[in-house]
């Protein structure tokens, strides 16, 4: 049973899941890096992104009879979800976090939880409690699942390849943005020392807005990916995904962008291999056991660095 094909199949399963976790983790990590805020509404932003993608798909005729070629339709879904989620992130920052920026750290945390419940229940009200399905199997006669690598017991569908490649492209893009652009440099400066950044003329508010936009846009992209691969979307989907994304951010070293990516992939792979090789019953226990062990060895996460404070 435990053949090479089995290993590769579980690897792909883990990478797909890990890609989603990584994109969500990036939002957590970026916001924490700049504001030292745990944005617990981030899972719900991802959920809204999935619904925006679903909306675009539906308006475009649905999976059964889309009015655009598949690649164009999927591009529209990603663009709309990323812009919509990005703007939602900006609105959340403006109305729920900015007024509390100088409040004790617990206050924005509670505000974040409030926004999370607000968005979840708004989605319940707007979209009802029904599960909605992207019905990706109907898209192009199932091309996204039929095409790909199908060799014997090994089945890597096209959609999984798209998800993994898109995630890699987004991560590379983000890394280049943060390391090569002026805004990226401003983000790093703000993350390092917000007050000093403001003193040297960096518009900190603008940097924070950009950070929320990018982090939320990536969550929106993750929402569409989940819709495309796992098909169903519903108002409660952000809860567990948000939790896993947050865990990924912590394990990678919260505040550290490559760490968030690594943490997401790490959790995805750990889940897949635990289920495949050890026990489907206790995979959460196994995964979180590994994570605890990692944090004991490296309390700041895989790539995190300890804060050094002069006294």
């Amino acid at each position, binding site marked *: 049973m435990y053949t090479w094909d089995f290993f590769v*199949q579980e690897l792909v399963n883990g990478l797909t899941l890990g890609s989603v976790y990584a994109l969500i983790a990036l939002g957590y990590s970026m916001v924490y890096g700049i504001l030292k805020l745990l944005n617990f509404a981030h899972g719900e932003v991802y959920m809204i992104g999935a619904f925006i993608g679903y909306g675009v798909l539906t308006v475009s005729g649905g999976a059964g009879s889309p009015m655009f070629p598949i690649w164009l339709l999927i591009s529209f879904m990603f663009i709309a979800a990323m812009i919509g989620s990005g703007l939602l992130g900006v609105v959340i920052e403006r109305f729920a976090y900015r007024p509390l920026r100088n409040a004790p750290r617990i206050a924005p945390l509670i505000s974040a939880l409030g926004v999370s419940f607000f968005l979840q229940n708004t989605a319940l009200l707007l979209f009802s*409690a029904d*599960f909605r*399905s992207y019905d990706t199997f109907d898209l192009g006669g199932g091309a996204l699942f039929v095409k790909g690598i199908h060799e014997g*017991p090994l*089945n890597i569908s096209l959609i999984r390849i798209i998800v993994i490649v898109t995630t890699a492209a987004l991560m590379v893009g983000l890394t280049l943005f943060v390391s090569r652009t002026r805004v990226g440099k401003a983000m790093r400066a703000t993350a390092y020392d917000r007050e000093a950044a403001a003193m040297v003329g960096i518009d900190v508010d603008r940097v924070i807005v950009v950070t929320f936009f990018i982090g939320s846009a990536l969550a929106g992209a993750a929402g569409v990916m989940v819709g495309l691969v796992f098909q*169903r979307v519903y108002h409660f989907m952000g809860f567990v995904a948000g939790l896993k994304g947050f865990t990924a951010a912590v394990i990678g070293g919260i505040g550290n962008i490559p760490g968030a990516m690594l943490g997401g992939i790490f959790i995805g792979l750990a889940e897949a291999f635990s289920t495949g090789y050890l026990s*489907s*019953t206790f995979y959460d226990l196994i995964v979180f056991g590994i994570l605890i062990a990692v944090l004991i060895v490296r309390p700041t996460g895989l790539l995190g660095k300890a804060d050094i404070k002069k006294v």
Partner: protein
Amino acid sequence: MKKALVFALIVAGVAAASASAVQRSSSSPAVSASRMAACTSGQIGFLGPITGPVAFLGAEQGNWAKYSLDTFNAANGTHFTLKQGDTQLNPKLALTVGTKFAADSSLLVTTGPAGSQEVIAVGPLFKRKGLPYISASATNVTLTQGKYPTFSRVVGSDAAQGKSDALFMVNKLHAKKVVIIDDQEAYSTGLAAAATAVLKANHVTVQRESVNQKVTDFSSLVTKVPDDARVVFLPWQVAANGQLFADQMKEQGKSAKIFGSDGLDSGDFTATGAYVSSFARDIHGLPGTQAIIAGYNKKYGTKWSTFGPPSFVSVQVAAMAYKAACADGTATRAELFKNIRAVKIPHSILGITVSFDKHGDVPAAKFYVSIIQSGGKHKLVG
């Protein structure tokens, strides 16, 4: 005119059923109309997953519950109201809401909760407080083995379901190897255990797996399904999870048949060629249901599954017991419990006689097996 006729038919049907149903052991003394009216204006509880991951189920059960009570009130001149409590299919929440219900001395009976794990959570409390409760979907075997004496249900138990499902796999699907995956809830593990026992007794190899119902990706688990497995049995509560599992089976080219328990018997699970069992059959076409279905569809729409009608019956039972208890102008929880166990609906909308044994089970309840055809249509096969 047509609307009035439909409503009149429903009212007449329910009135006739109610009139013949409760057999009281003693005649009630004459009571004033005002006392009677006050008594029959009480509340009937409804514990269900109104929000949360299976809110669709709560919505359906809740709508059928409201419809049942409206119909009963119109037919019997009563003014019972429904007190709703949201459990999200979560035992902790069920206990929180159940505590409020139990503490409300004006609440004498409740319907629900939906899940077996929730019944286990609230059971000891309801026992202490003497609160009778009737579930329309909790099927775990242990619930009617004496630990929860005020519990009743209008659907069959998993002992019957597990056995009938397993025998179907052996006799009709000729399975030699079956993968059983529970969703780590009491309902699911109980049903998985019941089916496992029967399969093993019939020399079928069983591979047991388990997955949390909040999981959103089953790819890794699907990869573990061996190629020689004939059937994958999913005793799950979230039908959309079953659909995702079926899609991922297809994606990985797995050919095993999926067999879902009653939890997958919903519009969210439409995998062509899969089998599902259900604790209630599709009531369309059953004698005496036409007017009730028409009335429901008019008010709440046509999207409902086999989860709704048992909720209708559970409220009907509660209301009948309540009305009977009010014959002397007052009612207590003890009286209602006694009356629930005395209820008899010879021609319920479920197509069976609804009455209860001393444990709270309906002796006539049974499970049905259907195959899902293209377009999601079900064909009864067992």
